[in-house]
């Protein structure tokens, strides 16, 4: 009886000790464990295949910085921006601006690329989810800066002029691949990741830069 108790107590003590002495794993071990958890937790559905979880070095670096609160080394940020800058190509026909009315439709739509969207269906730009754009649309998000008066505030009176060229090219690049200008921007890489077509991006460009667009009124 007494021995049994002693045994039970010893077992209990060993268990408690084991629980207390189990060290929390190192950061590298936790990174590895996270990868294992990801690998066993998701399955493909519709167009959302498992390759969407494949490591992307730009994303890995930014996520690590976000999670640890340690800013990226400036050299690393510059390397990310340089890599992404290389993906930006000027418009194939040299024309940067499309139709602002079509641009408004692209900006309004949040459709596309989810597992419930039909593969090959038209994607939206999700712009209003994060930005104020035209004054008339009151339902806008605040994750990104306001784009109301985008062209007007930057002095764009003729988007085809030499004066306007730098801002036109910058805006084109920013929509194509925002990470070329801000390594860890939260903005999707619309051109680089094939979210919007070249034509759709031209329409959004017109929404922001055409002096006749409601954005610049």
């Amino acid at each position, binding site marked *: 009886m007494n021995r049994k108790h002693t045994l039970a107590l010893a077992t209990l003590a060993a268990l408690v000790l084991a629980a207390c002495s189990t060290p929390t794993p190192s950061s590298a071990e936790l990174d590895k464990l996270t990868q294992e958890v990801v690998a066993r937790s998701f399955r493909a559905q519709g167009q959302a295949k498992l390759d969407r979880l494949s490591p992307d070095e730009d994303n890995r670096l930014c996520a690590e910085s976000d999670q640890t609160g340690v800013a990226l080394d400036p050299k690393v940020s510059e390397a990310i921006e340089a890599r992404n800058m290389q993906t930006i190509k000027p418009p194939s026909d040299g024309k940067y601006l499309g139709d602002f009315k079509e641009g408004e439709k692209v900006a309004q739509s949040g459709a596309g690329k989810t597992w419930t969207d039909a593969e090959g269906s038209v994607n939206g730009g999700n712009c209003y989810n994060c930005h104020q754009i035209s004054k008339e649309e009151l339902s806008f998000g605040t*994750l990104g800066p306001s784009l109301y008066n985008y062209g007007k505030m930057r002095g764009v009176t003729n988007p085809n002029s030499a004066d306007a060229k730098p801002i036109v090219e910058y805006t084109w690049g920013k929509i194509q691949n925002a990470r070329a200008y801000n390594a860890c921007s939260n903005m999707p890489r619309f051109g680089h990741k094939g979210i919007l077509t070249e034509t759709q991006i031209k329409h959004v460009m017109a929404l922001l830069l055409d002096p006749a667009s409601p954005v610049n009124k």
Partner: protein
Amino acid sequence: MKKIALASRLIGFSAVVGLIGLSTAAFAQKSSTDSIAEYRAMLQDGNPAELFEAKGEDLWKQKRGPKNVSLEACDLGKGAGVVKGAWVELPRYFSDTGRVQDLESRLVTCMQELQGFNGEEIAKTPFGKGEQSNVTALATWISAESKGMKFNLPQSHVEERKMYEVGKRLFFMRGGSHDFACATCHSQDDKRIRLQDLPNLTKNPGAGNGFGAWPAYRVSNGQMWGAQLRLNDCYRQQRFPYPMFGSDATIALGVFMGVNGKGGEATAPAIKR
């Protein structure tokens, strides 16, 4: 009797929703956040989640499944059959399964072990169908039994601490076609998507308010959503692949949000737009 009274309140409730639709333009003239708060307050008066609570309580006490027993011996972490206060301490580590589990995955364990249901089959069943809708109703009642209590997830077991750290890494993980992470929308204060306020889930009050509201009744689609479905739809909108029901990724995120929400008040089952 209670159900009839609830049903008539539901009819009144639908009328209120209709009226709100008509006056959207007028609403937009005021501060949008104020108007939304007003709208929610009006809805709170007749939350249809009560119907699911009643169903969940029945399901807990009913003899069901191949073994024809109730769930009253189910251990949700505070001992067999203890419901009150269980939800504000979940997810937690369970030694019988050797896993950290959230409320919904733990309920499936009990349905399998006590009642003889096939847990894997339930996990594979689409949300809102068959035994999955019963899991949602049970989770609704069980969370309601902790209403007003403060979140206090245990972090004493090493597996619980590991899951917090994994959840944190998942929260900041960027991926999918749009490079979105949970953190893209939920790591800053006072931000919105369109007019929808976004809780900052990395700290209180956002973490407690956000995590502590689900299961919730969603007015926009007339459905009762558990925390698993809430996370599933976040991942859908993040353009990620499909997170499996009760998977460790979903549970780790629950631990991350729940621990960040420590001391926050449990408001589930809430009512959402």
